[in-house]
C-alpha cells in the first residue's frame, strides 16, 4: 500500500505541491515565531552575560516592589557602602553603579534612537575593572559635571562625535553636556538597542537620580582568593542585616536578569504563537479542502482499487500515508521557510534600531521538532475524514461517470448547526448578562463553529443570489461562475471560511480599536479641562518628564496654572485579606492640580488631598468595601509603612483607580517623573502667545511634546494605532494563507473541470470568457468569506466591547474604514487569487477534453 501511496504522491506533483503549500504556509509562521523569540532570548542572555562578565559579586538593596513584567523595582543604597565593601578581605575592586532614565538629543534635535521603543538610559560608566563598556580610541573617562560618554549606536544616530555637545534630559531636568567619549558594549555598538549616556558616578547620581549619596548597586571584583559564593557570603556578613542589602554572585545576578527577560518575553512568545496558531488553523481548512477534493477526484480510481480487491482500509490507509508524506515534506519546508521569516523580522527590527541580533539567528533543536510534529499532526487530522470517505467508496462507483461531492444539506448538518447556534447564543447571553465573562468564550467559539458547520448550507444559495445579478451584466460567464461556486458548496464554504477567520479577527480587532478610540475621545474630552498638554516624546515607558518642569511652566506669565501627573508603584494591603500586592497609583500635586482634571468626585477632591490621603474610584470603593475616612495601609519602596486615609471618591476611573499626593513619596530615593503636564493659560492671553511661550520652555530639551487639548485628545485616541497595525500585520498572514487556499481550490477545480472547460472552448467560449468566469467564481468565494467575516467580526467586537464596559469602554463603534478596507481587499484578493487558475483554465486543451477516454 505504501508503494501505491508514494506513486500517487509522485504522480501528482502539482497536487503534492499545492497541498504541501498549505502545510508550509501554516508551519512557516510557527517556526518563524519560535526562531525569532529564541533568537531574542539568546541575544538578551548574551547581553547579560556580557554585562556581568567582570562581576564576581553584586550588592543591591533588599527593598523592592514586584513588577508584572520584567525586573522588580528596587530601592537605592547609600554610596558609603562602597568603601565598606572594598575593605572586605577578598575584594579586589568595588564600584558604585547608578542607572535610570535619561534621554539624549543632538543640538539639531536628532534622537539617539532610529525609532521610539528601545529604552533610553543614563548611568555611571563604572571603573575599568568592572564595567562592560569599552571606550573607543580618542575617548576619555568622563569627569566633572558636564562630561558624558555615549554608546556608539547613539553617536551614529545623532551624528555626534567626541567634542560635540548634546542635550540630556533626566530626573534632574535638561542640560547640555560635552561628549568626551564613545563606548561599545563588549563588541556591539550598544546593549540590546538601548541608548546610554554614561557619566562619572557623582554626576550620574545628580543627573539620573537627582539625589546625592545614593547608588543602585555595587559591582565587586574578587582578588581570586575566594569562590564567588564565598565572596558574596563574606560581603553579606560584613554589611550586616541593618544595611538592608542583598549580595548576589555574578552568576546569580546574570541568571536573575535572564529569567526576568524570559518572563517578559514569554508574553511576546505567547502572543505571537497565538497568531501562528490562527494561521495554522486557517491553513488546516486548506489542507482539509485539498484532501477532500483530491479524494473526490480520485473516487473513480479508488473504486477501481476496491473493485479489483483492495479493502476499504487499504484505500483509506493509502490516502493517510499520502497525507503523512505531504505533511512531512510540508513541515520540513515550513521549518526552513520559518528561518527565512525570522531572518526577515530580525532584519527589519535591526533596521529600525532594535539591535536584537548580535550573533545571527538562534535555532534550538526543539524548533524543527515542534514544527514538524505540529505540521504532521495537523495534516493527518485534516486527512482523517477525507481518507475515511475514500475508503467508503463503493466499487460500483468505478463504473459511474463524474465524481461530484455529496450534497451539503444533510439533516445532521442542519441539526448540528442549529444546536451549536443555540448553545452559542445561550452562552453569549449568559456572559453578557454579567454572571461571568468567561461564558463569552464558548459563545464566540460557538459562533465560529456554527458558521463553519452551516457554511455549506449558506454557500450555495449565497452564490446563486450573487450570481443572479452577475448573469444580468456578465451574461453566461457570470452565470457559470456562480453555478460553479455553488456546485461544491462544501468546498466553497471551506475556502471562504478560511478567509472568514482572518477577516473576522481583523474586523473584531478594528471594532474594539475604534470603540477604544471613541471611548478615549469621549472620556478625555470630559476629564481633561486644561488648554494644553505636555507629554514625553519617548514612549519607552521608562521615566518621563522631570517634575520640576511643571513648576517652570506655571511660572510663565501667560500661564494660569500647570500641574504634573505621575505614576508610581506601591504595595497596598488588601483591606479584606490584609495581604500586600503591588499596585500602580497615579501621583498628583494637590497644590497645583486645581480643577485641571475633572474626575467626577462625589466626595472630597484632588485639591484637598493631604500628604496622608488617597482618593479611590467608586468601583474600587465598592469592591474593597471602603468609605470616606477609612484607612488604607500601604508600603513604599523604602519599606516605609504608611496608613492612608480615604479622602476622596470619584466616578471617572479611566485614568486610575487610586490617586495619591506627590508628598507621599517625599522620603523615597528613586526619582519621580510626570507622564503628563496639564496647563491652562491666563484669561485674555491669546492662544498663540501662550502656546509659543510654553514651547520656548519645552523645546530646548527636545524631549517634551507640547499639544493643544484637541491635538492631545486626537493623539491619545490614536495611541493604540501602532499596536493595532501590529496585530493587523500578524493577521495578514492568515489572510495570505486564505488567499493561497482560494488559488489551490480553484486550481484543483480547474483541473477537475478540464473536460468541461475544453468543451466550452470547443463550442466557442473565448479564452478571456473562460478567464472571466474563473475570476468571478473566485470573487464570489472571496466576497462570501469577507461578508461572513465582517458579520462575525462586528459581533465579536461587540461582545468584547460589552464585556469591557465596566473597564471604561463606554462607546461601541464599528470602524467603517476597516470594513471598506476589508471589502476592497476581498475583491482584490479574489482577483489576484484567480489570476493563475484563470490562466490555466483558459489554456485547457480542447482535444484532450473531448477525447472519449
Amino acid at each position, binding site marked *: 500500500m505504501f508503494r501505491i501511496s508514494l506513486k500517487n504522491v509522485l504522480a501528482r506533483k502539482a497536487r503534492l505541491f499545492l497541498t504541501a503549500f498549505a502545510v508550509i504556509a501554516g508551519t512557516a509562521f510557527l517556526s518563524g515565531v519560535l526562531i525569532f523569540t529564541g533568537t531574542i532570548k539568546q541575544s538578551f542572555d548574551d547581553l547579560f552575560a556580557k554585562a556581568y562578565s567582570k562581576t564576581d559579586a553584586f550588592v543591591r538593596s533588599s527593598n523592592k516592589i514586584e513588577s508584572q513584567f520584567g525586573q522588580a523595582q528596587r530601592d537605592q543604597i547609600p554610596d558609603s557602602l562602597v568603601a565598606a565593601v572594598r575593605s572586605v578581605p577578598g575584594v579586589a575592586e568595588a564600584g558604585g553603579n547608578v542607572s535610570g532614565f535619561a534621554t539624549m538629543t543632538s543640538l539639531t534635535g536628532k534622537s539617539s534612537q532610529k525609532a521610539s521603543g528601545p529604552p533610553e538610559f543614563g548611568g555611571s560608566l563604572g571603573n575599568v575593572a568592572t564595567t562592560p563598556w569599552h571606550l573607543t580610541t580618542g575617548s576619555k573617562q568622563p569627569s566633572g559635571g558636564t562630561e558624558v560618554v555615549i554608546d556608539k549606536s547613539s553617536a551614529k544616530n545623532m551624528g555626534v562625535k567626541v567634542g560635540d555637545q548634546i542635550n540630556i534630559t533626566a530626573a534632574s531636568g535638561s542640560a547640555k553636556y560635552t561628549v568626551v567619549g564613545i563606548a561599545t558594549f563588549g563588541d556591539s555598538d550598544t546593549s540590546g538597542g538601548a541608548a546610554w549616556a554614561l557619566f562619572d558616578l557623582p554626576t550620574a547620581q545628580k543627573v539620573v537620580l537627582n539625589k546625592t549619596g545614593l547608588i543602585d548597586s555595587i559591582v565587586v571584583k574578587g582578588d581570586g582568593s575566594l569562590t564567588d559564593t564565598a565572596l558574596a557570603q563574606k560581603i553579606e556578613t560584613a554589611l550586616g542585616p541593618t544595611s538592608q542589602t542583598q549580595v548576589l554572585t555574578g552568576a546569580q545576578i546574570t541568571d536573575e536578569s535572564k529569567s526576568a527577560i524570559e518572563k517578559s518575553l514569554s508574553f511576546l512568545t505567547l502572543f505571537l504563537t497565538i497568531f501562528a496558531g490562527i494561521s495554522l488553523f486557517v491553513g488546516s481548512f486548506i489542507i482539509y479542502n485539498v484532501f477532500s477534493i483530491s479524494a473526490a477526484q480520485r473516487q473513480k480510481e479508488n473504486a477501481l482499487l476496491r473493485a479489483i480487491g483492495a479493502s476499504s482500509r487499504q484505500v483509506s490507509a493509502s490516502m493517510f500515508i499520502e497525507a503523512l508524506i505531504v505533511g512531512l515534506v510540508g513541515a520540513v519546508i515550513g521549518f526552513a521557510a520559518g528561518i527565512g521569516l525570522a531572518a526577515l523580522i530580525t532584519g527589519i527590527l535591526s533596521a529600525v534600531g532594535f539591535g536584537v541580533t548580535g550573533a545571527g539567528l538562534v535555532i534550538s533543536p526543539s524548533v524543527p521538532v515542534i514544527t514538524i510534529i505540529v505540521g504532521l499532526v495537523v495534516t493527518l487530522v485534516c486527512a482523517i475524514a477525507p481518507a475515511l470517505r475514500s475508503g467508503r467508496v463503493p466499487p460500483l462507483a468505478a463504473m459511474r461517470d463524474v465524481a461530484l461531492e455529496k450534497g451539503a444539506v444533510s439533516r445532521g448538518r442542519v441539526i448540528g448547526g442549529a444546536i451549536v447556534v443555540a448553545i452559542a447564543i445561550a452562552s453569549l447571553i449568559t456572559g453578557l448578562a454579567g454572571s461571568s465573562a468567561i461564558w463569552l468564550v464558548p459563545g464566540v467559539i460557538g459562533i465560529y463553529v456554527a458558521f463553519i458547520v452551516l457554511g455549506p448550507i449558506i454557500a450555495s444559495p449565497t452564490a446563486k443570489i450573487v450570481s443572479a445579478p452577475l448573469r444580468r451584466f456578465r*451574461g453566461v460567464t457570470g452565470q457559470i461562475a456562480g453555478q460553479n461556486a455553488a456546485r461544491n458548496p462544501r468546498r466553497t464554504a471551506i475556502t471562504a471560511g478560511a478567509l472568514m477567520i482572518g477577516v473576522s479577527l481583523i474586523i473584531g480587532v478594528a471594532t474594539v480599536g475604534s470603540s477604544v478610540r471613541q471611548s478615549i475621545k469621549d472620556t478625555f474630552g470630559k476629564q481633561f479641562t486644561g488648554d494644553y498638554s505636555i507629554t514625553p516624546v519617548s514612549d519607552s515607558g521608562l521615566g518621563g518628564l522631570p517634575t520640576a518642569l511643571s513648576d517652570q511652566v506655571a511660572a510663565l506669565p501667560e500661564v494660569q496654572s500647570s500641574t504634573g501627573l505621575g505614576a508610581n508603584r506601591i504595595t497596598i494591603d488588601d483591606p479584606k485579606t490584609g495581604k500586600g500586592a503591588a499596585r500602580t497609583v497615579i501621583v498628583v500635586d494637590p497644590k497645583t492640580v486645581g480643577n485641571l482634571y475633572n474626575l467626577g468626585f462625589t466626595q472630597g477632591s484632588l485639591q484637598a488631598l493631604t500628604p496622608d490621603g488617597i482618593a479611590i474610584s467608586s468601583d474600587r470603593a465598592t469592591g474593597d468595601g471602603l468609605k470616606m475616612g477609612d484607612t488604607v495601609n500601604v508600603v513604599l519602596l523604602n519599606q516605609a509603612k504608611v496608613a492612608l486615609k480615604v479622602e476622596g471618591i470619584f466616578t471617572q476611573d479611566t485614568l486610575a483607580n487610586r490617586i495619591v499626593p506627590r508628598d507621599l513619596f517625599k522620603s523615597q530615593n528613586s526619582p519621580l517623573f510626570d507622564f503628563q503636564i496639564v496647563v491652562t493659560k491666563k484669561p485674555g492671553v491669546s492662544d498663540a502667545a501662550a502656546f509659543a511661550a510654553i514651547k520656548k520652555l519645552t523645546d530646548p530639551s527636545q524631549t517634551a511634546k507640547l499639544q493643544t487639548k484637541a491635538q492631545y485628545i486626537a493623539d491619545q485616541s490614536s495611541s493604540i494605532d501602532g499596536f493595532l497595525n501590529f496585530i493587523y500585520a500578524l493577521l495578514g498572514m492568515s489572510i495570505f494563507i486564505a488567499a493561497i487556499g482560494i488559488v489551490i481550490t480553484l486550481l484543483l477545480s480547474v483541473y477537475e473541470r478540464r473536460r468541461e472547460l475544453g*468543451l466550452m472552448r470547443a463550442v466557442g467560449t*473565448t479564452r*478571456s*470568457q473562460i478567464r472571466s468566469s474563473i475570476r468571478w467564481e473566485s470573487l464570489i468565494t472571496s466576497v462570501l468569506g469577507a461578508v461572513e467575516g465582517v458579520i462575525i467580526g462586528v459581533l465579536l467586537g461587540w461582545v468584547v466591547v460589552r464585556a469591557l464596559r465596566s473597564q471604561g469602554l463606554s462607546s461601541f463603534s464599528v470602524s467603517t474604514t476597516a470594513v471598506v478596507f476589508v471589502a476592497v481587499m476581498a475583491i482584490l484578493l479574489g482577483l489576484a487569487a484567480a489570476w493563475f487558475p484563470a490562466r490555466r483554465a483558459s489554456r485547457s486543451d480542447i482535444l484532450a477534453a473531448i477525447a472519449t477516454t
Partner: protein
Amino acid sequence: MSLVDPPVPQTSPTFAASSSSSPIAPGNVSTATPAAGAVDAAKIYGSGDSEVRALDGVTVGFEAAHFSAIMGPSGSGKSTLMHCLAGLDALTSGAVYIGDTYLAKLNDRQLTEFRRTEVGFIFQAYNLIPTLNAYENITLPLLLGGQKGDQAWIDRVVETVGLRNRLKHRPSELSGGQQQRVAVARALASKPRIIFADEPTGNLDSRTGAEILDFMRRAVNELGQTIVMVTHDPQAASYADRVVFLADGKIVDEMQEPTAESVLDRMKRFGD
C-alpha cells in the same frame, strides 16, 4: 510532395474535391460548392522513428445541405480530420476551409468566434456543461456571443428534438440519449454553416442511436443543415448522402447513397 511548402490553393476551393493530388479520382464528383473541405491536408504526430502520419495528403470537400459520413478503420485519422476541419486542431501542412474562410488565417480569438457562430459540434460523450440545464446548454453558443438568437428557430429545434418538457433538467438528470439530443439541438440552435459529429451514437443503444440519426437526417432534409459525421457503424453511415473512406490517413474511397450492406461490404475489404 514537400511538407515545408504546402500547395495552398490560390483559387476558390470549389475544385477541391477533384484535386489531382487526391490519391484516387472520385467517381461521382458533385458539382455543388463544398461547405467545407481540406486541401492536401497532412497531420504528423511525433518525429523520427515514432512519427505517425495521422493525415497524409487528404483532399476532400463536403457539400452544403448534405449529410456526409467519414468511415475507416480505427486509427485511420477520422477524428484527426474532423478536428482539423472544425478548427479544433491545426494541420502540419495543407489547408482546411469552411465556406470561403481558410481557418489557418484566423488567430485564436477569431477562430473561437468562428467556431461559435459557424460550427456546431456533437461529440461521442461529455457534450454538455453539467452546471447548465438543457435549455441553457442548447443556447450556450448564442449566450456566449451575447445574442438572444432566433427564438422561433430555437423553439422549432427544441420541438423537433422532442425535449420540450426536459428543458429545465440538468444533464445528470437526463438519459444518455436525451443528452445526445440536447447536444444535437445545441449544434443546430445557432444555425451554423456546418455541424461536425464524432461518433455521436457511439455510446447509445441501437434504438436510441437510430432516433438521433433520424433526427440529424431530418435536420438536413427539413432545415437544410450541413452535417459531417464520423462513424464506425455501417447502419449509421446509411443515413448519410455520401460516405468517404479513410485508411492510414488517406482518402481511399467514397460512396454515394450508401446502404448498410454496401458500407459493410466496403469495410470488410479493409481487413485484407
